[in-house]
């Protein structure tokens, strides 16, 4: 084993794959963030994404245009958004139960339609939305093509997050949305239609969920496959929680999820974890610690948090120094993000940021 420090998994290709893996999460996450900020937990997101993936694929197949297909994807998500809104907002049904129902219905519907429409013929591959490299930037050596040589939706997703941040925190719409998820009584006395805002939230989440699904089917690969969203909808829910209901938090969460996924792709068959991974972990831990220190000033952190920080620095540090020959199972890498999200919840950090009416039925008798 050579002791040299190669950056191997953390290279341009990894960066590029992280961007691509992150894009559908970001798109759907932006919508889900808005919906959750308005108090609606959209457990049916997985189904909406799946529906978007299918309808985008079908539209692409009919029209041959990936761009029109994206519209089809949005429409596919919206179909279930309407169902969700009708059940949850109009009828006051339980959000989680409605979401579970929507997921099952979407799996059933898309599988069935796919079977009916495409079952008898050869596998259909539709044209995908090509790359749109940004002229000058994409020719930067090393990272240029990874960062700036992607398809339009990758940039779109980032723009979307900026837009989400802007809408939520810089515009009067954002105030309405946040106040509805936080304190609907206050919104009502301010003359805001709570149901209207929640409808908007649900439909935005559904439409963007559908778009994210469309990304999977017609932008990335040009193929539809039963249940191809493969739990990404749930992952988005995790990312929104993990990101503490903030756009930049969401970006960080999606980055971590996608980075872990990209890393796991790369590490899958390396016999022992390369040193650079420990370096990466150490850098990440130092970054987190640094941000915390900077945000809260020194001393403001509790003893438990301090211990966690110390451990998260010392462990990879030690591993870096001793560079042991470890092969961690892929499964651990894959579950790492969920374990992290769970600990964030348990640490109670997120609770304070959680929209206080999230997941709850609308207040009925509020004046």
């Amino acid at each position: 084993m050579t002791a040299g420090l190669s950056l191997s998994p953390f290279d341009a290709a990894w960066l590029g794959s992280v961007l691509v893996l992150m894009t559908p999460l970001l798109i759907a996450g932006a919508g889900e963030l808005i919906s959750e900020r308005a108090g609606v937990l959209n457990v049916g997101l997985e189904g909406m994404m799946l529906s978007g993936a299918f309808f985008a694929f079908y539209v692409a197949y009919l029209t041959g245009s990936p761009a029109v297909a994206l519209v089809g994807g949005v429409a596919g998500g919206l179909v279930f958004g309407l169902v969700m809104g009708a059940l949850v907002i109009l009828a006051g049904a339980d959000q989680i139960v409605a979401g579970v129902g929507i997921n099952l219905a979407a799996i059933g519907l898309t599988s069935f339609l796919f079977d009916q429409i495409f079952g008898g013929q050869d596998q259909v591959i539709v044209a995908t939305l090509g790359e749109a490299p940004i002229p000058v930037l994409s020719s930067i050596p090393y990272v240029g093509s990874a960062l700036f040589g992607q398809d339009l939706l990758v940039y779109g997703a980032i723009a979307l997050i900026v837009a989400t941040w802007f809408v939520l925190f810089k515009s009067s719409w954002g105030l309405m949305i946040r106040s509805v998820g936080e304190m609907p009584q206050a919104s009502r006395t301010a003359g805001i239609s709570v149901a209207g805002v929640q409808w908007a939230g649900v439909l935005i989440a559904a439409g963007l969920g559908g778009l994210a699904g469309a990304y999977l089917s017609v932008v990335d690969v040009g193929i539809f496959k039963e249940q191809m969203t493969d739990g990404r909808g749930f992952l988005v829910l995790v990312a929104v929680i993990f990101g503490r209901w903030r756009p930049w938090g969401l970006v960080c969460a999606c980055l971590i999820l996608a980075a872990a996924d990209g890393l796991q792709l790369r590490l899958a068959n390396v016999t022992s974890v390369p040193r650079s991974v420990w370096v990466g972990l150490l850098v990440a831990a130092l970054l987190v610690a640094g941000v915390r220190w900077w945000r809260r000033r020194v001393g403001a952190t509790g003893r438990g948090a301090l211990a966690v920080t110390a451990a998260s620095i010392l462990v990879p540090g030690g591993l870096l120094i001793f560079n042991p020959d470890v092969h961690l199972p892929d499964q651990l890498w894959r579950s790492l993000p969920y374990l992290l999200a769970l600990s964030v919840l348990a640490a109670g950090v997120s609770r304070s940021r959680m929209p206080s009416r999230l997941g709850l039925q609308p207040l009925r008798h509020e004046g």
Partner: protein
Amino acid sequence: ACGSAGELNSTEDESALTVGLILEGPKNDKAFNESAYSGVLNAAKDNPDVVLKSTLENRHSTQEQTDAVGTLAPIVDVVVAAGAQFGPIFDVEAPKFPDTKFVTIGGYPAKHHDNVYSLAFDRVAAYVVGAIAVELTDSKTVGFLGGADIPPTNASMAAFKAAVADADPSVKVLSNIVGDFNDVSKAKAATAAMIADGADVLMSYLDAGVVGSYAAAQESGKDIPIFKLDLLECDAYPNIVGANVGDNTAAVETMLGGLATDTLEPAGVTIFAGLEDPKLQRVDLCPRYAEDPVVADLAQKTVAGILDGTIALPEEALNPRPEGPYRLGIDGPVKNAG
């Protein structure tokens, strides 16, 4: 496609050998499942007695697969199932239906049953692919991209790596199992990663996912020779070297044909198909490489070496041999009997 109820009754006569096919994925996946499906259709064409009565597709979980076996076993003469997990399922289900015959391609039955016919590929063609890959690489780095983490994937990877090590130990092998034969986007990301890590020849051991490998290779802007799995399609991507073919179609066709003509004897003997019979397993080259004397010659020599035993394959590249009787090659002598 498999007809309505009315049709079924009319074709059912005494001598017919009715077949039920179970597939883990869709029958039009242009890959593993589709080729098994074609095998049944071919067998039916060859032998008028063979009638495909019904096809159950997309049976992903063990539970669904078991149910599918239970559904078909009572209503057909032969249940054909393609995929590794059917071995253990047949171990349990076959004795319940003594009058039905069970054929698995790639399954791993652990028990001996008189009505189970099993054919598994010893994935040695991957060795040939590995040898050619060493020949083609300039960067001295080659890549193996696997689908689901299942035996054929791991065995092929082992054979591929062995070939590279034998031919030129200084060539590096990158390998990655993405977890799914059909997840195009993951395959794309993984392929891009490999290319970035320097691989300039790839074995893409995927089904529908191979499209992702093509896309990544094209986006990389480099000219990356790619081997694919099973069906040879030389136009899907400009630089397909060839296909590592474990011919499901032929395997199903052969097994069904043998059953129809009563030449497949004895039952319960697991067949391991290597390169003995090119109909079953081989490396197909696209014209550009088939006409390249160096590559074609290398391929031929490697196959010959494997067949005459001068090239020894590592144990991980071969199927674990069962406790019961088995034979190497469809016509090979029975080993381990009694």
